[in-house]
Protein backbone atom coordinates (compact mmCIF):
# COMPACT_ATOMS: atom_id res chain seq x y z
CA UNK A 1 0.00 0.00 0.00
CA UNK A 2 1.39 3.38 -0.93
CA UNK A 3 1.49 6.24 1.49
CA UNK A 4 -1.23 8.02 -0.49
CA UNK A 5 -3.52 4.95 -0.24
CA UNK A 6 -2.81 4.64 3.44
CA UNK A 7 -3.72 8.23 4.20
CA UNK A 8 -7.27 9.47 4.45
CA UNK A 9 -8.12 13.15 4.46
CA UNK A 10 -11.75 13.98 4.99
CA UNK A 11 -12.50 17.63 4.74
CA UNK A 12 -15.56 19.82 5.11
CA UNK A 13 -14.52 23.38 4.62
CA UNK A 14 -17.70 25.00 5.88
CA UNK A 15 -19.64 23.01 8.39
CA UNK A 16 -23.31 23.99 8.30
CA UNK A 17 -25.88 24.25 11.06
CA UNK A 18 -23.64 25.37 13.88
CA UNK A 19 -23.66 28.84 15.35
CA UNK A 20 -20.48 30.52 14.20
CA UNK A 21 -17.57 29.63 12.01
CA UNK A 22 -14.85 27.06 12.57
CA UNK A 23 -13.12 24.07 11.05
CA UNK A 24 -12.36 20.47 11.81
CA UNK A 25 -9.40 18.43 10.76
CA UNK A 26 -9.03 14.67 11.15
CA UNK A 27 -6.03 12.69 9.97
CA UNK A 28 -5.95 8.92 9.83
CA UNK A 29 -3.04 6.72 9.03
CA UNK A 30 -4.37 3.29 8.21
CA UNK A 31 -6.79 2.51 11.04
CA UNK A 32 -5.06 4.86 13.43
CA UNK A 33 -6.64 8.23 14.16
CA UNK A 34 -3.60 10.49 14.41
CA UNK A 35 -5.12 13.93 14.73
CA UNK A 36 -8.50 15.38 15.63
CA UNK A 37 -8.80 19.13 15.77
CA UNK A 38 -11.84 21.27 16.23
CA UNK A 39 -10.32 24.41 14.81
CA UNK A 40 -12.01 27.64 15.76
CA UNK A 41 -10.48 30.30 13.58
CA UNK A 42 -13.07 33.00 14.02
CA UNK A 43 -11.00 35.95 15.12
CA UNK A 44 -10.84 36.66 18.84
CA UNK A 45 -13.30 39.36 19.79
CA UNK A 46 -11.57 40.84 22.82
CA UNK A 47 -14.71 41.38 24.87
CA UNK A 48 -12.80 40.89 28.11
CA UNK A 49 -10.47 43.70 27.04
CA UNK A 50 -13.42 45.92 26.00
CA UNK A 51 -14.80 45.58 29.51
CA UNK A 52 -11.73 46.87 31.29
CA UNK A 53 -12.18 50.52 32.20
CA UNK A 54 -15.94 50.45 31.70
CA UNK A 55 -18.48 51.04 34.46
CA UNK A 56 -19.68 47.86 36.13
CA UNK A 57 -23.22 48.84 35.18
CA UNK A 58 -22.33 48.53 31.49
CA UNK A 59 -21.26 44.88 31.62
CA UNK A 60 -24.72 43.32 31.09
CA UNK A 61 -25.30 45.28 27.88
CA UNK A 62 -21.77 44.78 26.57
CA UNK A 63 -21.62 41.06 27.25
CA UNK A 64 -25.13 40.53 25.80
CA UNK A 65 -23.53 41.35 22.45
CA UNK A 66 -21.25 38.32 22.62
CA UNK A 67 -24.01 36.05 21.39
CA UNK A 68 -27.28 36.48 19.47
CA UNK A 69 -28.52 33.13 20.75
CA UNK A 70 -27.75 33.33 24.44
CA UNK A 71 -27.52 37.01 25.46
CA UNK A 72 -29.55 36.40 28.64
CA UNK A 73 -26.97 33.87 29.80
CA UNK A 74 -24.26 36.51 29.41
CA UNK A 75 -26.34 39.15 31.13
CA UNK A 76 -27.31 36.88 34.02
CA UNK A 77 -23.79 35.59 34.65
CA UNK A 78 -22.55 39.19 34.48
CA UNK A 79 -25.09 40.65 36.91
CA UNK A 80 -24.61 37.80 39.36
CA UNK A 81 -20.85 38.21 39.31
CA UNK A 82 -21.01 41.99 39.71
CA UNK A 83 -23.58 41.78 42.49
CA UNK A 84 -21.31 39.22 44.15
CA UNK A 85 -18.41 41.68 43.90
CA UNK A 86 -20.60 44.30 45.62
CA UNK A 87 -21.82 41.96 48.35
CA UNK A 88 -25.35 41.59 46.99
CA UNK A 89 -27.16 38.32 46.26
CA UNK A 90 -30.63 38.20 44.70
CA UNK A 91 -31.63 34.63 45.43
CA UNK A 92 -35.34 34.96 45.88
CA UNK A 93 -38.30 37.19 45.14
CA UNK A 94 -39.79 38.60 41.97
CA UNK A 95 -36.55 40.00 40.55
CA UNK A 96 -34.92 36.59 40.66
CA UNK A 97 -38.12 35.05 39.27
CA UNK A 98 -38.05 37.48 36.35
CA UNK A 99 -34.42 36.55 35.69
CA UNK A 100 -35.38 32.89 35.62
CA UNK A 101 -38.38 33.68 33.43
CA UNK A 102 -36.36 35.49 30.78
CA UNK A 103 -33.73 32.73 30.99
CA UNK A 104 -36.54 30.18 30.30
CA UNK A 105 -37.39 32.29 27.24
CA UNK A 106 -33.81 32.01 26.05
CA UNK A 107 -33.74 28.22 26.57
CA UNK A 108 -36.96 27.95 24.53
CA UNK A 109 -35.57 30.17 21.74
CA UNK A 110 -32.22 28.44 21.60
CA UNK A 111 -33.37 24.83 22.01
CA UNK A 112 -36.19 25.16 19.48
CA UNK A 113 -33.73 26.60 16.96
CA UNK A 114 -31.29 23.77 17.56
CA UNK A 115 -33.75 20.89 17.79
CA UNK A 116 -35.78 21.79 14.69
CA UNK A 117 -33.53 23.85 12.42
CA UNK A 118 -30.04 22.57 13.15
CA UNK A 119 -30.28 19.03 14.56
CA UNK A 120 -33.46 17.42 13.13
CA UNK A 121 -32.14 17.40 9.52
CA UNK A 122 -29.33 15.07 10.66
CA UNK A 123 -31.82 12.46 11.80
CA UNK A 124 -34.27 12.84 8.92
CA UNK A 125 -31.58 12.89 6.24
CA UNK A 126 -31.74 16.41 4.88
CA UNK A 127 -28.92 18.87 4.25
CA UNK A 128 -30.81 21.56 6.17
CA UNK A 129 -34.06 22.87 7.57
CA UNK A 130 -35.10 24.44 4.26
CA UNK A 131 -34.96 21.12 2.42
CA UNK A 132 -36.56 19.34 5.40
CA UNK A 133 -39.42 21.82 5.54
CA UNK A 134 -40.63 20.80 2.04
CA UNK A 135 -41.44 17.30 3.39
CA UNK A 136 -41.97 18.07 7.08
CA UNK A 137 -43.78 21.37 7.08
CA UNK A 138 -45.66 20.62 10.29
CA UNK A 139 -42.45 19.83 12.15
CA UNK A 140 -40.77 23.08 11.12
CA UNK A 141 -43.90 25.08 11.91
CA UNK A 142 -43.89 23.51 15.39
CA UNK A 143 -40.32 24.67 15.90
CA UNK A 144 -41.21 28.18 14.77
CA UNK A 145 -44.21 28.28 17.09
CA UNK A 146 -42.10 27.21 20.04
CA UNK A 147 -39.42 29.75 19.20
CA UNK A 148 -42.07 32.44 18.99
CA UNK A 149 -43.13 31.68 22.57
CA UNK A 150 -39.52 32.09 23.72
CA UNK A 151 -39.25 35.33 21.76
CA UNK A 152 -42.44 36.60 23.42
CA UNK A 153 -40.90 36.17 26.88
CA UNK A 154 -37.67 37.83 25.77
CA UNK A 155 -39.56 40.74 24.22
CA UNK A 156 -41.82 41.34 27.19
CA UNK A 157 -39.28 40.94 29.97
CA UNK A 158 -36.13 41.93 28.08
CA UNK A 159 -37.42 44.73 25.90
CA UNK A 160 -36.64 42.90 22.65
CA UNK A 161 -36.19 39.34 21.39
CA UNK A 162 -32.47 39.54 20.63
CA UNK A 163 -29.87 41.32 22.71
CA UNK A 164 -32.43 42.35 25.36
CA UNK A 165 -31.84 45.71 26.98
CA UNK A 166 -33.86 45.62 30.18
CA UNK A 167 -31.58 43.71 32.54
CA UNK A 168 -29.27 45.60 34.85
CA UNK A 169 -27.10 45.05 37.89
CA UNK A 170 -29.58 44.77 40.77
CA UNK A 171 -32.58 43.81 38.64
CA UNK A 172 -34.34 45.44 35.70
CA UNK A 173 -34.92 48.95 34.33
CA UNK A 174 -38.64 48.26 34.21
CA UNK A 175 -40.60 45.29 35.46
CA UNK A 176 -43.76 44.03 33.79
CA UNK A 177 -47.11 44.15 35.51
CA UNK A 178 -49.01 40.97 36.37
CA UNK A 179 -51.46 41.79 33.61
CA UNK A 180 -48.69 42.15 31.05
CA UNK A 181 -47.23 38.78 32.03
CA UNK A 182 -50.66 37.13 31.76
CA UNK A 183 -50.47 37.72 28.00
CA UNK A 184 -47.75 35.07 27.93
CA UNK A 185 -49.89 32.33 29.48
CA UNK A 186 -51.75 31.19 26.34
CA UNK A 187 -48.64 31.07 24.13
CA UNK A 188 -46.71 29.24 26.86
CA UNK A 189 -49.44 26.69 27.49
CA UNK A 190 -49.42 26.02 23.75
CA UNK A 191 -45.62 25.87 23.82
CA UNK A 192 -45.71 23.29 26.61
CA UNK A 193 -48.03 21.10 24.51
CA UNK A 194 -45.75 21.51 21.50
CA UNK A 195 -42.72 20.68 23.66
CA UNK A 196 -44.39 17.49 24.89
CA UNK A 197 -45.13 16.54 21.26
CA UNK A 198 -41.49 17.27 20.50
CA UNK A 199 -40.27 14.88 23.20
CA UNK A 200 -42.53 12.13 21.84
CA UNK A 201 -41.32 12.78 18.28
CA UNK A 202 -37.65 12.98 19.24
CA UNK A 203 -37.87 9.67 21.10
CA UNK A 204 -38.77 7.92 17.82
CA UNK A 205 -35.60 9.05 16.02
CA UNK A 206 -32.88 6.50 15.24
CA UNK A 207 -29.93 6.87 17.62
CA UNK A 208 -26.46 5.42 17.25
CA UNK A 209 -25.68 3.33 20.32
CA UNK A 210 -22.79 5.26 21.83
CA UNK A 211 -21.78 6.63 25.18
CA UNK A 212 -19.20 9.26 25.94
CA UNK A 213 -16.73 9.29 28.76
CA UNK A 214 -15.97 12.86 29.87
CA UNK A 215 -16.92 14.01 33.32
CA UNK A 216 -20.23 15.88 33.31
CA UNK A 217 -20.31 19.30 34.97
CA UNK A 218 -23.38 21.38 35.78
CA UNK A 219 -24.73 23.72 38.37
CA UNK A 220 -26.51 22.37 41.41
CA UNK A 221 -29.43 24.43 42.70
CA UNK A 222 -31.10 22.89 45.76
CA UNK A 223 -34.33 24.68 44.81
CA UNK A 224 -34.76 23.08 41.41
CA UNK A 225 -33.39 22.38 37.94
CA UNK A 226 -30.32 24.60 37.56
CA UNK A 227 -30.50 27.75 35.46
CA UNK A 228 -29.33 30.92 37.10
CA UNK A 229 -27.25 30.00 40.15
CA UNK A 230 -25.73 27.18 42.13
CA UNK A 231 -22.60 25.34 43.04
CA UNK A 232 -20.59 23.72 40.27
CA UNK A 233 -20.78 19.94 40.59
CA UNK A 234 -19.78 16.92 38.54
CA UNK A 235 -20.39 13.18 38.38
CA UNK A 236 -16.73 12.81 39.32
CA UNK A 237 -17.08 14.40 42.74
CA UNK A 238 -16.45 18.06 41.95
CA UNK A 239 -18.48 20.29 44.26
CA UNK A 240 -17.28 23.89 44.31
CA UNK A 241 -18.63 27.40 44.62
CA UNK A 242 -18.21 29.64 41.56
CA UNK A 243 -15.52 31.52 43.52
CA UNK A 244 -13.39 28.36 43.32
CA UNK A 245 -13.69 28.02 39.52
CA UNK A 246 -10.10 29.09 38.82
CA UNK A 247 -8.70 26.66 41.35
CA UNK A 248 -10.31 23.67 39.66
CA UNK A 249 -10.74 24.60 36.01
CA UNK A 250 -7.83 25.76 33.91
CA UNK A 251 -7.84 27.21 30.44
CA UNK A 252 -4.97 26.83 28.00
CA UNK A 253 -4.26 27.91 24.49
CA UNK A 254 -3.96 25.36 21.69
CA UNK A 255 -2.32 26.19 18.40
CA UNK A 256 -5.30 25.16 16.22
CA UNK A 257 -8.03 27.20 17.89
CA UNK A 258 -8.75 30.80 18.73
CA UNK A 259 -10.85 29.60 21.64
CA UNK A 260 -9.11 28.51 24.80
CA UNK A 261 -9.51 24.90 25.86
CA UNK A 262 -10.73 24.32 29.41
CA UNK A 263 -10.08 21.24 31.51
CA UNK A 264 -10.52 20.12 35.05
CA UNK A 265 -7.21 20.49 36.84
CA UNK A 266 -5.46 17.12 37.18
CA UNK A 267 -8.46 15.39 35.57
CA UNK A 268 -8.88 16.48 31.93
CA UNK A 269 -11.81 17.14 29.66
CA UNK A 270 -15.35 17.62 30.79
CA UNK A 271 -18.75 18.24 29.27
CA UNK A 272 -21.33 20.86 30.16
CA UNK A 273 -24.79 21.37 28.68
CA UNK A 274 -28.13 19.56 28.48
CA UNK A 275 -26.73 16.04 28.97
CA UNK A 276 -24.73 17.12 32.02
CA UNK A 277 -27.69 19.00 33.49
CA UNK A 278 -29.97 16.04 32.92
CA UNK A 279 -27.54 13.57 34.46
CA UNK A 280 -26.77 15.67 37.49
CA UNK A 281 -30.15 17.32 38.10
CA UNK A 282 -32.71 15.22 36.23
CA UNK A 283 -34.40 14.40 39.53
CA UNK A 284 -35.12 18.12 39.95
CA UNK A 285 -37.06 18.43 36.70
CA UNK A 286 -40.61 19.62 37.05
CA UNK A 287 -43.10 16.72 37.09
CA UNK A 288 -44.30 17.33 33.53
CA UNK A 289 -40.73 17.31 32.18
CA UNK A 290 -39.67 14.30 34.27
CA UNK A 291 -42.71 12.31 33.14
CA UNK A 292 -42.00 13.25 29.52
CA UNK A 293 -38.40 12.07 29.86
CA UNK A 294 -39.50 8.71 31.23
CA UNK A 295 -42.16 8.37 28.54
CA UNK A 296 -39.41 9.00 25.99
CA UNK A 297 -37.42 6.11 27.44
CA UNK A 298 -34.71 8.16 29.12
CA UNK A 299 -33.45 6.70 32.37
CA UNK A 300 -31.93 8.69 35.23
CA UNK A 301 -28.77 9.00 33.14
CA UNK A 302 -28.12 9.62 29.46
CA UNK A 303 -24.57 9.70 28.07
CA UNK A 304 -25.43 9.29 24.39
CA UNK A 305 -24.78 12.66 22.71
CA UNK A 306 -27.13 11.74 19.84
CA UNK A 307 -29.95 11.62 22.38
CA UNK A 308 -29.22 15.18 23.40
CA UNK A 309 -32.07 16.11 21.03
CA UNK A 310 -34.47 14.29 23.38
CA UNK A 311 -32.94 15.97 26.42
CA UNK A 312 -33.25 19.40 24.78
CA UNK A 313 -36.91 18.60 24.06
CA UNK A 314 -37.37 17.67 27.73
CA UNK A 315 -35.79 20.99 28.67
CA UNK A 316 -38.27 22.71 26.36
CA UNK A 317 -41.04 21.19 28.50
CA UNK A 318 -39.16 22.21 31.65
CA UNK A 319 -38.66 25.80 30.49
CA UNK A 320 -42.23 26.37 29.32
CA UNK A 321 -43.71 24.72 32.43
CA UNK A 322 -41.45 26.66 34.76
CA UNK A 323 -42.18 29.91 32.92
CA UNK A 324 -45.88 29.34 33.52
CA UNK A 325 -45.26 28.69 37.23
CA UNK A 326 -43.15 31.83 37.56
CA UNK A 327 -45.85 33.91 35.88
CA UNK A 328 -48.51 32.38 38.10
CA UNK A 329 -46.81 33.43 41.33
CA UNK A 330 -45.47 36.77 40.11
CA UNK A 331 -46.13 39.86 42.16
CA UNK A 332 -44.75 43.12 40.88
CA UNK A 333 -41.84 44.20 43.12
CA UNK A 334 -41.84 47.61 44.83
CA UNK A 335 -38.79 48.64 42.87
CA UNK A 336 -37.50 47.18 39.61
CA UNK A 337 -33.98 46.90 40.97
CA UNK A 338 -32.22 46.78 44.32
CA UNK A 339 -29.50 49.28 45.03
CA UNK A 340 -26.03 47.92 44.30
CA UNK A 341 -23.30 50.23 45.51
CA UNK A 342 -19.87 49.59 44.02
CA UNK A 343 -16.94 48.61 46.20
CA UNK A 344 -13.53 47.26 45.45
CA UNK A 345 -13.70 43.51 45.03
CA UNK A 346 -13.89 40.44 42.87
CA UNK A 347 -17.15 38.69 42.02
CA UNK A 348 -18.05 35.40 40.37
CA UNK A 349 -21.17 34.33 38.48
CA UNK A 350 -22.03 30.98 36.92
CA UNK A 351 -25.27 30.17 35.10
CA UNK A 352 -26.53 27.51 32.70
CA UNK A 353 -26.58 28.87 29.15
CA UNK A 354 -28.65 26.64 26.82
CA UNK A 355 -25.45 24.90 25.69
CA UNK A 356 -23.71 24.75 29.07
CA UNK A 357 -22.01 26.42 31.96
CA UNK A 358 -21.11 30.10 31.54
CA UNK A 359 -18.70 31.58 34.08
CA UNK A 360 -17.91 35.29 34.58
CA UNK A 361 -15.45 36.89 36.98
CA UNK A 362 -14.98 40.64 37.41
CA UNK A 363 -12.67 42.75 39.50
CA UNK A 364 -13.98 46.26 40.07
CA UNK A 365 -12.60 49.23 41.98
CA UNK A 366 -14.36 51.36 44.58
CA UNK A 367 -15.85 53.59 41.84
CA UNK A 368 -17.26 50.56 40.08
CA UNK A 369 -14.81 50.62 37.17
CA UNK A 370 -14.05 47.16 35.81
CA UNK A 371 -10.36 46.43 36.27
CA UNK A 372 -10.37 42.87 35.01
CA UNK A 373 -12.88 40.53 33.39
CA UNK A 374 -12.84 36.86 32.61
CA UNK A 375 -15.52 35.01 30.65
CA UNK A 376 -15.46 31.25 30.10
CA UNK A 377 -18.21 30.21 27.65
CA UNK A 378 -19.61 26.69 27.40
CA UNK A 379 -18.16 25.89 23.98
CA UNK A 380 -14.66 26.64 25.23
CA UNK A 381 -15.26 24.21 28.04
CA UNK A 382 -16.70 21.55 25.72
CA UNK A 383 -14.10 21.78 22.92
CA UNK A 384 -11.84 19.08 24.22
CA UNK A 385 -14.73 16.73 24.98
CA UNK A 386 -16.08 17.30 21.45
CA UNK A 387 -12.68 16.40 19.99
CA UNK A 388 -12.60 13.23 22.09
CA UNK A 389 -16.14 12.41 20.96
CA UNK A 390 -15.06 12.93 17.33
CA UNK A 391 -12.11 10.64 17.79
CA UNK A 392 -14.41 7.92 19.14
CA UNK A 393 -16.83 8.44 16.24
CA UNK A 394 -14.03 8.05 13.68
CA UNK A 395 -12.62 4.95 15.40
CA UNK A 396 -16.08 3.40 15.55
CA UNK A 397 -16.92 4.12 11.91
CA UNK A 398 -13.53 3.81 10.28
CA UNK A 399 -14.94 1.48 7.62
CA UNK A 400 -17.26 4.19 6.29
CA UNK A 401 -16.47 6.10 3.12
CA UNK A 402 -14.92 9.51 3.52
CA UNK A 403 -18.21 11.18 2.66
CA UNK A 404 -20.18 9.10 5.15
CA UNK A 405 -17.56 9.60 7.83
CA UNK A 406 -17.56 13.33 7.27
CA UNK A 407 -21.33 13.41 7.74
CA UNK A 408 -21.02 11.39 10.98
CA UNK A 409 -18.40 13.80 12.27
CA UNK A 410 -20.51 16.83 11.45
CA UNK A 411 -23.41 15.19 13.25
CA UNK A 412 -21.21 14.47 16.26
CA UNK A 413 -20.30 18.14 16.46
CA UNK A 414 -23.91 19.30 16.13
CA UNK A 415 -24.92 16.94 18.94
CA UNK A 416 -23.18 19.42 21.23
CA UNK A 417 -24.78 22.56 19.75
CA UNK A 418 -21.49 24.47 19.79
CA UNK A 419 -21.66 28.24 19.70
CA UNK A 420 -18.43 29.20 18.07
CA UNK A 421 -19.30 32.88 18.07
CA UNK A 422 -19.39 32.75 21.81
CA UNK A 423 -16.12 30.94 22.12
CA UNK A 424 -14.25 33.47 20.04
CA UNK A 425 -17.78 32.25 13.72
CA UNK A 426 -17.00 29.12 10.08
CA UNK A 427 -16.34 25.54 10.57
CA UNK A 428 -14.22 23.71 7.99
CA UNK A 429 -13.99 19.96 8.38
CA UNK A 430 -10.99 18.02 7.16
CA UNK A 431 -10.36 14.31 7.61
CA UNK A 432 -6.90 13.30 6.49
CA UNK A 433 -6.32 9.54 6.01
CA UNK A 434 -2.86 8.14 5.38
Amino acid sequence: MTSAEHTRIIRTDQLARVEGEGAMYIRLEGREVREVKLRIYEPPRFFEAFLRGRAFTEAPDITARICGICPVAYQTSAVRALEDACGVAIDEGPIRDLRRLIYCGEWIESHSLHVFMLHAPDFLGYPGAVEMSRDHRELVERGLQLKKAGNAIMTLVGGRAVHPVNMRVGGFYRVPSRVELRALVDPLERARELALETVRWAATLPFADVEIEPEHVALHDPAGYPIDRGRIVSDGGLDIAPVEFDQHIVEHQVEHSNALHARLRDRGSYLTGPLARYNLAGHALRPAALAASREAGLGPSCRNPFQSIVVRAVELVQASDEALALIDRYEEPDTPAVEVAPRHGVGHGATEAPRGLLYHRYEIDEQGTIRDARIVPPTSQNQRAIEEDLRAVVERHIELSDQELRFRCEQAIRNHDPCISCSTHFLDLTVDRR
Partner: protein
Amino acid sequence: MTGAVDREPSGGVLVVGLGNDLRGDDAAGIEVARRLRQSRALPGIRVREHQGDPAELLELWSGRDAAILVDCMRSGAPPGTIRRFDVDRQHLPVRRRGSTSSHAIALMDAIELGRALQRLPRQALLYAVEGGTFDAGSGLSPPVETVIAELADTVWREAIGLRVCPQFQ
Protein backbone atom coordinates in the same frame (compact mmCIF):
# COMPACT_ATOMS: atom_id res chain seq x y z
CA MET B 1 -40.77 47.73 26.13
CA THR B 2 -43.15 46.35 23.54
CA GLY B 3 -46.01 43.93 23.89
CA ALA B 4 -45.42 40.19 23.72
CA VAL B 5 -47.60 39.61 20.71
CA ASP B 6 -47.27 41.44 17.42
CA ARG B 7 -50.74 42.80 16.83
CA GLU B 8 -49.97 44.68 13.66
CA PRO B 9 -52.61 44.40 10.96
CA SER B 10 -51.91 41.96 8.17
CA GLY B 11 -51.75 42.83 4.48
CA GLY B 12 -50.10 45.86 2.94
CA VAL B 13 -46.45 46.45 2.21
CA LEU B 14 -43.79 45.76 4.78
CA VAL B 15 -40.38 47.40 4.55
CA VAL B 16 -37.76 45.83 6.79
CA GLY B 17 -34.34 47.31 7.40
CA LEU B 18 -32.04 44.52 8.55
CA GLY B 19 -28.68 44.51 10.22
CA ASN B 20 -26.66 45.29 13.26
CA ASP B 21 -26.20 48.95 14.04
CA LEU B 22 -22.99 48.28 15.95
CA ARG B 23 -21.18 46.57 13.08
CA GLY B 24 -20.18 49.27 10.59
CA ASP B 25 -21.97 49.01 7.24
CA ASP B 26 -24.12 46.16 8.55
CA ALA B 27 -26.24 49.06 9.87
CA ALA B 28 -27.17 50.18 6.32
CA GLY B 29 -30.61 48.48 6.32
CA ILE B 30 -31.37 49.78 9.79
CA GLU B 31 -30.39 53.30 8.73
CA VAL B 32 -32.70 53.17 5.68
CA ALA B 33 -35.59 52.07 7.90
CA ARG B 34 -34.88 54.84 10.40
CA ARG B 35 -34.83 57.52 7.72
CA LEU B 36 -38.08 56.27 6.22
CA ARG B 37 -39.77 56.13 9.61
CA GLN B 38 -38.69 59.67 10.38
CA SER B 39 -39.71 61.26 7.10
CA ARG B 40 -42.30 59.14 5.27
CA ALA B 41 -45.66 57.68 6.14
CA LEU B 42 -48.48 56.28 4.03
CA PRO B 43 -51.35 54.00 4.96
CA GLY B 44 -50.65 50.46 3.89
CA ILE B 45 -46.87 50.75 4.21
CA ARG B 46 -45.20 49.71 7.44
CA VAL B 47 -41.51 50.20 8.05
CA ARG B 48 -39.68 48.10 10.61
CA GLU B 49 -36.14 47.82 11.83
CA HIS B 50 -35.01 44.31 12.50
CA GLN B 51 -31.77 43.62 14.25
CA GLY B 52 -32.52 40.14 15.37
CA ASP B 53 -33.04 36.62 14.24
CA PRO B 54 -34.09 36.29 10.58
CA ALA B 55 -36.36 33.39 11.62
CA GLU B 56 -38.53 36.07 13.14
CA LEU B 57 -38.88 37.59 9.70
CA LEU B 58 -41.22 34.74 8.84
CA GLU B 59 -43.55 36.05 11.49
CA LEU B 60 -43.10 39.65 10.43
CA TRP B 61 -43.88 39.18 6.76
CA SER B 62 -46.48 36.37 7.04
CA GLY B 63 -49.82 37.70 5.83
CA ARG B 64 -48.31 40.73 4.11
CA ASP B 65 -49.08 41.37 0.46
CA ALA B 66 -45.54 42.46 -0.25
CA ALA B 67 -42.24 42.85 1.54
CA ILE B 68 -39.12 44.84 0.78
CA LEU B 69 -36.02 43.81 2.69
CA VAL B 70 -33.04 46.11 2.93
CA ASP B 71 -29.72 44.68 4.03
CA CYS B 72 -26.02 44.96 3.59
CA MET B 73 -24.10 42.53 1.35
CA ARG B 74 -20.55 41.52 0.69
CA SER B 75 -20.15 40.39 -2.91
CA GLY B 76 -16.84 41.87 -3.94
CA ALA B 77 -18.46 44.86 -5.69
CA PRO B 78 -17.27 48.37 -4.81
CA PRO B 79 -18.67 49.52 -1.43
CA GLY B 80 -21.91 51.46 -1.91
CA THR B 81 -23.05 49.36 -4.90
CA ILE B 82 -26.81 48.75 -4.69
CA ARG B 83 -28.46 45.60 -6.05
CA ARG B 84 -32.12 44.57 -6.27
CA PHE B 85 -33.32 40.97 -6.12
CA ASP B 86 -36.83 39.59 -6.73
CA VAL B 87 -36.55 37.01 -3.99
CA ASP B 88 -40.13 35.83 -4.56
CA ARG B 89 -38.99 34.55 -7.94
CA GLN B 90 -35.29 33.85 -7.64
CA HIS B 91 -32.84 32.34 -5.21
CA LEU B 92 -30.23 34.65 -3.84
CA PRO B 93 -26.84 34.10 -5.48
CA VAL B 94 -24.96 33.73 -2.20
CA ARG B 95 -22.69 31.25 -0.50
CA ARG B 96 -24.30 29.45 2.39
CA ARG B 97 -21.68 30.50 4.92
CA GLY B 98 -18.92 32.93 5.35
CA SER B 99 -20.60 36.29 5.59
CA THR B 100 -19.88 38.71 8.35
CA SER B 101 -23.52 38.55 9.39
CA SER B 102 -23.97 38.20 13.09
CA HIS B 103 -27.55 37.00 12.58
CA ALA B 104 -28.31 33.60 14.08
CA ILE B 105 -29.45 32.10 10.78
CA ALA B 106 -28.75 33.62 7.42
CA LEU B 107 -31.24 35.88 5.70
CA MET B 108 -31.12 33.49 2.76
CA ASP B 109 -32.30 30.64 5.00
CA ALA B 110 -35.22 32.74 6.23
CA ILE B 111 -36.23 33.52 2.63
CA GLU B 112 -35.91 29.91 1.51
CA LEU B 113 -37.71 28.67 4.61
CA GLY B 114 -40.51 31.16 3.86
CA ARG B 115 -40.67 29.88 0.29
CA ALA B 116 -40.78 26.20 1.39
CA LEU B 117 -43.44 26.90 4.00
CA GLN B 118 -45.41 29.05 1.53
CA ARG B 119 -45.08 31.98 3.87
CA LEU B 120 -43.24 34.33 1.57
CA PRO B 121 -45.32 37.34 0.46
CA ARG B 122 -46.47 37.20 -3.16
CA GLN B 123 -44.00 39.95 -3.90
CA ALA B 124 -40.75 40.00 -1.98
CA LEU B 125 -37.77 42.15 -2.89
CA LEU B 126 -34.35 42.55 -1.42
CA TYR B 127 -32.30 45.69 -1.79
CA ALA B 128 -28.73 45.13 -0.77
CA VAL B 129 -25.93 47.61 -0.51
CA GLU B 130 -22.33 46.49 -0.67
CA GLY B 131 -20.58 47.10 2.63
CA GLY B 132 -16.97 48.09 3.07
CA THR B 133 -16.36 47.79 6.77
CA PHE B 134 -17.96 45.65 9.45
CA ASP B 135 -15.84 46.63 12.40
CA ALA B 136 -17.56 46.92 15.77
CA GLY B 137 -18.66 50.46 16.50
CA SER B 138 -17.20 51.91 13.31
CA GLY B 139 -20.40 53.46 11.85
CA LEU B 140 -21.21 53.59 8.14
CA SER B 141 -18.28 53.91 5.75
CA PRO B 142 -18.28 56.99 3.46
CA PRO B 143 -19.21 55.05 0.27
CA VAL B 144 -22.26 53.55 2.01
CA GLU B 145 -23.20 56.77 3.81
CA THR B 146 -23.20 58.50 0.41
CA VAL B 147 -25.83 56.17 -1.10
CA ILE B 148 -28.14 55.75 1.90
CA ALA B 149 -30.47 58.65 0.95
CA GLU B 150 -30.74 57.38 -2.63
CA LEU B 151 -31.40 53.85 -1.37
CA ALA B 152 -34.12 55.08 1.00
CA ASP B 153 -35.78 56.98 -1.88
CA THR B 154 -35.64 53.96 -4.15
CA VAL B 155 -37.10 51.66 -1.52
CA TRP B 156 -39.91 54.11 -0.76
CA ARG B 157 -40.82 54.51 -4.46
CA GLU B 158 -40.87 50.72 -4.77
CA ALA B 159 -43.09 50.42 -1.68
CA ILE B 160 -45.55 52.96 -3.13
CA GLY B 161 -45.57 51.05 -6.41
CA LEU B 162 -46.36 47.80 -4.62
CA ARG B 163 -49.00 49.51 -2.49
CA VAL B 164 -50.94 50.75 -5.52
CA CYS B 165 -50.45 47.52 -7.40
CA PRO B 166 -53.98 46.60 -8.66
CA GLN B 167 -53.82 43.07 -7.28
CA PHE B 168 -53.65 44.47 -3.75
CA GLN B 169 -56.58 46.84 -4.07
